[in-house]
């Protein structure tokens, strides 16, 4: 069985008000890869992910998901995102259980009751992150790390083939970080393609199969694309653009262990 190309990005460019945020990004992600998308703030990581998910239109270039051009892609159930938080759960009480179930809501299901199989999958996902006992609690009464685990359960409940995570390790304590790492290792072994958008590889460096470093100071946004660890050259801004104001040093950190 040959590996399927999950994400294909060709010469992708995005501009905001004339500023190049992404320039000529070429990226091909194969089934089962564990990608860390690295780069300092403003390097276009988030824009690239939004573009891959169809949330950010491209000015030039093409993106395909699972071999289908984004404009015609309909198999969104194969894709899941783990955000940093759920904005709507802070203004109204939302239970942990409701937050997890919300991952399974699709337009196709609107004409019938919420399927029993989706409930069962949501229960398994919440059990797998160890928070089934907290299902009736308000999401915003959980700790930050626990909320992150709920959002992971939300994504897992749909058994995605592609999992995109935004800064999953940020602000986690050791216990939550270990739980997350174990879970990611399990998913990776099961063949899920994983993209982690992050500032740092701390805690997950053993799992990552490929690091992609973005930096928007040249005509190609992708600065490094290869196995970890990221060579030291790419950790420091070796070619500062003469127009750029001095910036904080880029924070591509490697796990010291």
């Amino acid at each position, binding site marked *: 069985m040959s590996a399927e190309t999950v994400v294909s990005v060709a010469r992708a460019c995005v501009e905001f008000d004339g500023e190049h945020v992404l320039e000529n990004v070429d990226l091909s992600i194969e089934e089962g890869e564990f990608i860390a998308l690295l780069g300092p703030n403003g390097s276009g990581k988030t824009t690239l992910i939004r573009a891959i998910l169809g949330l950010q239109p491209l000015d030039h270039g093409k993106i395909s998901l699972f071999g289908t051009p984004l404009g015609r892609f309909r198999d969104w159930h194969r894709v899941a995102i783990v955000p940093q938080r*759920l904005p*709507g759960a802070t203004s109204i009480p939302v239970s942990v259980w409701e937050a997890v179930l919300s991952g399974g809501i*699709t337009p196709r299901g*609107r004409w019938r009751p919420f399927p029993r199989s989706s409930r069962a999958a949501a229960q398994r996902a919440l059990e797998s992150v160890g928070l089934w006992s907290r299902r009736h609690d308000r999401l915003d009464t959980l700790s930050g790390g626990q909320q992150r685990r709920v959002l992971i359960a939300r994504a897992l409940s749909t058994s995605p083939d592609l999992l995109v995570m935004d800064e999953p390790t940020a602000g986690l304590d050791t216990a939550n970080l270990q739980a997350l790492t174990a879970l990611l290792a399990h998913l990776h072994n099961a063949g899920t393609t994983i993209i982690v958008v992050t500032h740092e590889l701390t805690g997950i460096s053993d799992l990552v199969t490929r690091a992609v470093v973005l930096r928007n100071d040249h005509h190609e946004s992708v600065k490094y694309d290869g196995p970890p660890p990221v060579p030291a050259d790419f950790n420091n801004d070796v070619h500062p653009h003469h127009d750029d104001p001095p910036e904080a040093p880029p924070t591509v950190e490697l796990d010291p262990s």
Partner: protein
Amino acid sequence: MSILDYDFMQRALVAAALVGLLAPLIGVFLVQRRLALLGDGMGHVALTGVGLAFLLGTAPIPTAMVTAALGAFLIEFIRYRSRTAGDVALALLFYGGIAGGVLFASLAPGKASSSLNAYLFGSLSTVASGDIVALLSLCLVVVILMAIFGREMFAMSLDADLAAVQGIRVRMMSTLLAVLAAVVVVVGMRVVGLLLVSAIMIVPVAAAQQVTRSFRATAAVAVLLGLIASVSGLVTSFVVEVPPGPTIVLEALALFAILALVAVPLRRRRRETH
């Protein structure tokens, strides 16, 4: 002599019960999306419809419904197009709505501008027998649409980007929600009045979330509180002989205050059990 012996009170009670039921159902999504003031603006826009109805001699409910629905589309368009200056653009639309309503009513023949008051703060006697059918059908439409699209709206209100990646048509859901809010405004304008109707969308929700732990429970408790406030407020208004809008809203606010007080020890106890 019972209140129910008066035909106009029977009709007013039905209208009040309908708005008490529907308004929090829509309001819970507005609060979740941090659009609590959207209903307020919709009421202002609907006022132009009422003014137009006076001027043209058409029926107020359909005219206000069309105006408010157009306003809902316009509001969603503005929100989508201008991310930063959106709230200023909305403010302009809302001021225009009030000014247009008062202006058209003043231009209308007869005593239209004095009966405008009944639409601003609600009235016990203005629910005509023909209105009941119109109100019931509007409510039926809202309930059916919520039954079909409510889950997708919930997902959208949690996080629009996540919802979009689940294949949910976020702009369509957002526009639908705005139009449903417009429907509720028109349903409530007779009894609660256009200036206060959005309070029945928001206050019961704010009260309910003091004591609830889930979205579903918040919606259910809010609907219950909305019903209690609107029906008892209407009766109070009959007894005290004041417009029903203010009594309904003040009773809803009183419920909010009571639940906010109850919630303090409740939360403390919950924190201790964890």
